[in-house]
């Protein structure tokens, strides 16, 4: 197989689209960790719930956009309830407790979904507008992947604006640094935490909804995604949004090019990349840059 410039550009574009989904996932995980210090092992489970929520809504109403929006809202609400009733009582205790809780939550919810939806993959049809690829001089990329890239870009712009320019965003950032001080200003910090958790899992649900058209929604689909998402976050540096973005971009390109050159190494490659980066920077690329 000859490595032509066209092939390399195509590979980069597909890698960018792959990375975009990881960015959505990793940003959600980062917000949760940065704000709550909770290592959310159920992040992939919320991704899976997003895919199923999109499937249910699209099946009922036949509208992809409604499905995608509903996935974020429905799963965000599930996240709200989860944080309020399950995670909140564990704040201030050993960090292992919320970690174990989210792990248990993921196992239980996966089994529950298996009981409800069975083991056969559920499909969300690709909207007609996104079928086929954009092509130019041998360079091509599926329209849907272009949508994923722009959607992620839009989400990142929103997150930047939200955290830097809005009062609520600034309060959240302040709460991640010194929640006691924010509390003394009369702000309901526990409510801020709940909102942050819902926002984080909402992003995972968005990624799940997006991927429900190109993969089948399955109860187990979140397991691998959780691991890959942690790799992205660790590469970028725990708690850093910039790190999550860079980590997602790196992993997308690593998977893409290793798939081209040595496909059987594509799974291992992300772990080797993580290992190499951690050897050089033990706290990840942006690990010391602070939070959010």
């Amino acid at each position, binding site marked *: 197989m000859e490595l032509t410039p066209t092939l390399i550009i195509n590979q980069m574009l597909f890698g960018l689209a792959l990375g975009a989904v990881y960015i959505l996932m990793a940003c959600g995980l980062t917000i949760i960790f940065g704000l709550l210090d909770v290592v959310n092992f159920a992040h992939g489970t919320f991704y899976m719930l997003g895919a199923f929520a999109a499937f249910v809504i699209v099946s009922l109403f036949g509208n992809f956009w409604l499905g995608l929006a509903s996935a974020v809202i429905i799963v965000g609400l599930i996240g709200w309830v989860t944080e309020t009733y399950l995670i909140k009582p564990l704040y201030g205790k050993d960090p292992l407790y919320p970690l174990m809780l989210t792990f248990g939550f993921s196992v239980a919810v996966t089994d529950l979904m298996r009981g409800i939806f069975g083991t056969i993959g559920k*499909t969300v049809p690709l909207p007609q507008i996104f079928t086929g*690829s954009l092509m130019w001089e041998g360079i091509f990329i*599926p329209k849907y992947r272009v949508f994923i890239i722009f959607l992620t870009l839009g989400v990142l712009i929103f997150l930047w604006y939200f955290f830097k320019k809005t009062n609520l965003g600034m309060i959240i950032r302040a709460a991640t640094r010194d929640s006691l001080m924010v509390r003394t200003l009369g702000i309901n910090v526990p409510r801020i935490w709940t909102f942050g958790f819902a926002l984080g899992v909402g992003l995972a649900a968005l990624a799940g909804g997006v991927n429900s058209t*190109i993969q089948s929604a399955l109860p187990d689909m979140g397991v691998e995604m959780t691991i890959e998402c942690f790799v992205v976050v660790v590469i970028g540096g725990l708690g850093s949004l910039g790190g999550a973005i860079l980590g997602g971009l790196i992993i997308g390109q690593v998977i893409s090019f290793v798939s081209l050159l040595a496909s059987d190494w594509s799974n291992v490659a992300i772990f080797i990349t993580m290992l190499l980066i951690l050897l050089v920077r033990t706290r990840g690329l942006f690990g010391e840059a602070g939070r959010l």
Partner: protein
Amino acid sequence: MKKSSWIIGSVFLFTLMLSGVASAKPIAALLFPLSGPFSAMGTDMKQGSELALEEINAKGGVLGQKAEVVMGDDEFKAPVAIRKYKEMVDGQGIKAIGGTLSGGISVAVNEWACKNKVLYMCFCHSSIPLGKEQCGYGFVSGMIPYQTGVATAKYAFQNLGKSWMIVTQDYRFGTDELSAWLTVSEKMGGKFLGNIYSPLGQVDYSAHIPKIAATNPEILVINVYGQSMDAIIKQLGEAGLTNKKMKFVIPKSHLWSIKAAGLIYNENFYGGHEYYWTLQDKFPKAKKFIEAYGKKYGVPPSQDADGGYTGTRALLEAMNAAKTTTDVAKLVKTLEGFKMDYNKGPEEFRACDHIRATSVVIVKGIGAKAKDWNFGEVVAEYPASETLESCENNKKDVPYGAVKLPGK
């Protein structure tokens, strides 16, 4: 005090009742991947087994008693499967085990069964009748992976083109299929353009699409199974490759993957099946199976459902014929050359290598014409005589076992 005595008494009675229920001694242990990437197929397999068990019990059970069979989840992991089988063999005295849906896991379970002198009825595509894996205790109610490879490759080179590229799931099943395709390609003048190894459980194939598009083969062989198969078909469709000249051949296809693909699974798709439900038009006895399965589960049986049904029914009928549930030597002897007429006409377990000699069906996609469960049309059927190697060859694991695999 009186109240607490009453509660304790009730709990004791309930426990006693439960222990009474559990005391019916199971005669076989079956495991399926009910979670993990093959869970949809594993569920089918379990349902096939349940139906066979139900039918056997309706006809009087095994050795005049209601047959009890333990069924569980192997989590698609060989260590889990072996641990659970061991628990049931050591703890409950079971001497016959069955199930599993993975070429790799079945080989590991077979090795364990051989060491422990336990009869193992594998329901999936498995290489346990080949070479050193052949130990005398393993039977296969599915088929050997190379059979679907041979059948689909023959069909493809005769009807679809010569240049081909393959995406191979990187484990025993996938590499066996790849060997078959390489062998048939050499014999029939095929032009091999490259292989892409895919890790087990992969669900995003987009990174391979530029390479596939740049290579532009006449035939792309999708040699992956489970949720990976759903994903790659959808992603090829997403990229717009499925509506062009390229043909897609899936050595082991599946009903659920075709359903999941929807309109993408069009006339350019060809899949190998050990069983396809429209065979009821050809074999009258299949009609009964399909009706019973449909009534119980609301869907037609897939090839994995057939593998589970055939393996379970044959195992239990062999116990009746051998008049034992625990004498492994007698059971093995009974199953060798065991004749069946279940869902695909008269068949048997070959005495020499314990493989169910069965045909491969090639099903072509029908795209927009698909309706209800009618996803495709059967365009060819290759009998076992055209896909199965001789006993001598299987014993030596030739020719497919001798193939040098690319990149290995």
